[in-house]
């Protein structure tokens, strides 16, 4: 950004500083490591100067917020105009329990809903399935039919809130139920706003909630993208996720590269349906983690925006700037929370949330301090929400757009993230794409290696976890109250489900499931048929079983 002579002068001065001032300091106060690296493996320098950004071109590489390449932010005014959405992930027990928690969060100032489903629902099992035993309502809300969905959103006007649903394999089914609820409320489909996670690729190497093999899974994701492009203009059909990739043990760099690649794969699969890129790309959204290394995370978010914009423009020839937007939701990292001294987690979450804000996120979930132990209590989730509100209203960081833009360190790191991510993308291209790489176990191996390395660093105390391998409390007891799911939940849910199955028009259900089977074999877009099925009160499990018959079930490729 400076002329060559000025940069050379700085270089000379730095070299002089390294010869004269620095050695005394090193003698008095030696550096605690011979090399400082972040977990992505990047070497961190002692001090960054204009030399490190000498090739940075402000107009080309940063630009102004709201304009390509969007490094500084998607919107021209960012948080000065509108804060990020405070969207707290919630869900447990029955639909009534979660409905109550939704209303509580809305009343406390949350601006968007985010739904957690229980394991059986996520895996396409009804609450009365043998595999659901002991799991109903435990990690999220149990939804087995449209009836449950109606209870979940009872009293919540779908034209006034946006709802995110963390669901992947059965995403088309849950979205169909949401549409059906909206229809009943009299809200027109064009007004329905929200997101379905619906990112099936990452399941194979990160979240592992895969039901069907890779090819039909991509097909189901694409069905939803296509359907929304045509019928639900305000809905984000997919939240291309890096969060789970990171939680599975990947580095920030791997999170960035693999997520972007999944995005590339979905754009390609949707283009194959005959849509034009500008028809749907503006509704693709992303979901990242925010971890403890403050600057690494900020660089990652900025690099993500710039890199996606370039990919959409150069690889996919998007014309509409909105197609080049990387809209992201961020969640603070779950795996960095400790069970030991849980109140420390409030501090961790704050640092992580701040990184997400300085990284320019559109939407943010902050974890509660008790989440290493349990689902959050009302008190804990309130503190997490307040964390966002304090950052928003008290810290002043929202007064300007991209406050860290121009920092020698942050810009150098952003560039390095981008370049290294591109290398990964090239490598996966060479392998034949995302599905080929999954079948070869590429992602799985990379992640397993990073996870193992991380654990070794902790075991060897090369990485400090406060309260866990350092600054511990002997004989610590659990000082906080935990949220417990009443085992009654399962009984009630099962009873309700069985009542539904008795009282609905079973002939109609049978017919529609046959229709679905036929449509799946013909490789049609299944959304319209699934909407019909949920309206007839076919259950989630019944619909998924039809698809299981057609697509088969996935068996995992294990790489440790």
């Amino acid at each position: 950004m400076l002329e060559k002579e000025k940069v050379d002068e700085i270089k000379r001065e730095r070299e002089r500083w390294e010869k004269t001032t620095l050695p005394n300091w090193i003698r008095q106060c030696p550096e605690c490591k011979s090399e400082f690296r972040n977990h992505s493996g990047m070497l961190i320098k002692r001090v960054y100067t204009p030399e490190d950004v000498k090739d940075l071109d402000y107009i080309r590489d940063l630009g102004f917020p709201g304009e390509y390449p969007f490094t500084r932010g998607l919107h021209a005014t960012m948080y000065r105009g509108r804060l990020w959405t405070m969207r707290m992930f919630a869900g447990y027990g029955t639909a009534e329990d979660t409905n109550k928690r939704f209303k509580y969060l809305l009343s406390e100032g949350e601006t968007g809903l985010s739904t957690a489903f229980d394991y059986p629902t996520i895996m396409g099992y009804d609450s009365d399935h043998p595999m659901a035993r002991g799991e109903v309502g435990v990690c999220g809300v149990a939804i087995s039919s449209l009836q449950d969905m109606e209870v979940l959103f009872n009293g919540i006007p779908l034209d006034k809130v946006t709802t995110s649903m963390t669901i992947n394999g059965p995403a088309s089914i849950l979205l169909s139920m949401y549409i059906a609820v909206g229809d009943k409320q009299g809200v027109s489909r064009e007004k329905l706003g929200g997101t379905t996670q619906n990112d099936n690729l990452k399941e194979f190497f990160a979240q592992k909630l895969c039901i069907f093999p890779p090819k039909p899974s991509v097909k189901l994701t694409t069905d939803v993208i296509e359907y929304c492009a045509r019928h639900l203009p305000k809905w984000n059909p997919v939240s291309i996720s890096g969060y789970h990739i990171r939680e599975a043990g990947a580095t920030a760099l791997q999170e960035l590269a693999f997520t972007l690649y999944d995005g590339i794969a979905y754009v390609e699969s949707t283009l194959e349906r005959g849509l034009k890129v500008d028809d749907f790309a503006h509704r693709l959204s992303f979901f990242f983690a925010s971890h403890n290394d403050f600057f690494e995370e900020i660089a990652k978010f900025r690099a993500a925006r710039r890199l996606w914009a370039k990919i959409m423009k150069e690889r996919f020839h998007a014309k509409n700037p909105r197609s080049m937007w990387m809209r992201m939701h961020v969640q603070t990292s779950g795996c960095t929370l400790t069970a030991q001294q849980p109140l420390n987690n409030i501090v961790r979450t704050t640092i992580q949330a701040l990184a997400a804000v300085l990284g320019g996120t559109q939407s943010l979930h902050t974890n509660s301090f008790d989440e290493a132990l349990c689902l959050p209590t009302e008190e804990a989730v309130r503190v997490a929400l307040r964390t966002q509100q304090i950052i928003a209203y008290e810290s002043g960081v929202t007064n300007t757009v991209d406050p860290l833009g121009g920092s020698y360190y942050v810009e150098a790191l952003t560039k390095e993230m981008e370049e290294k991510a591109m290398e990964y993308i090239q490598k996966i291209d060479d392998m034949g794409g995302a599905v080929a790489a999954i079948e070869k176990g590429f992602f799985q191996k990379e992640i397993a290696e990073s996870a193992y390395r991380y654990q070794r660093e902790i075991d060897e105390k090369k990485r400090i976890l406060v309260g866990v391998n350092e600054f511990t409390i002997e004989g610590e007891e659990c000082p906080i109250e935990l949220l417990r799911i009443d085992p009654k939940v399962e009984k009630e849910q099962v009873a309700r489900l069985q009542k539904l199955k008795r009282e609905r028009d079973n002939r109609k259900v049978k017919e529609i499931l046959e229709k679905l089977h036929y449509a799946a074999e013909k490789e049609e877009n299944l959304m319209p048929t699934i909407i019909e099925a949920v309206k007839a009160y076919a259950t989630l499990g019944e619909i998924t079983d039809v698809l299981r018959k057609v697509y088969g079930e996935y068996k995992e490729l294990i790489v440790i």
Partner: protein
Amino acid sequence: MQSKRKIRVLIAKPGLDSHDRGAKVVARALRDAGMEVIYTGLRQTPEQIVETALQEDVDVIGLSILSGAHKALFPRIMELLKEKGLTDVMVFAGGIIPDEDVPEMKKLGIKEIFGPGTPTEKIIEFVLENVPKRT
């Protein structure tokens, strides 16, 4: 080359919980400590876990669960182990199991519960010290 006895460990993921990062890290660490590790993969029923332990004649079972379903699944697993005569297998568990549930789990016969943040060395040492002796 004489084959000496090796410690055979089954690492199992009961129920629908899909978090396998910990199970895989522990599996690898145990392998690197010289043990033979059989990993079942995700979403195993108690019946599958116990049958596997029987066929593989393991010395130790490590159960990994983060979903909160341990209260339903662990008793069933321990019951089946007894039914099949596998009472000499040492069972330990890890994941997210609240402190207040630990005494109950231990009463079922689970030897130790390792919470989040347990160093892998500790788990390896524990297995080495507590692996049942065979005659």
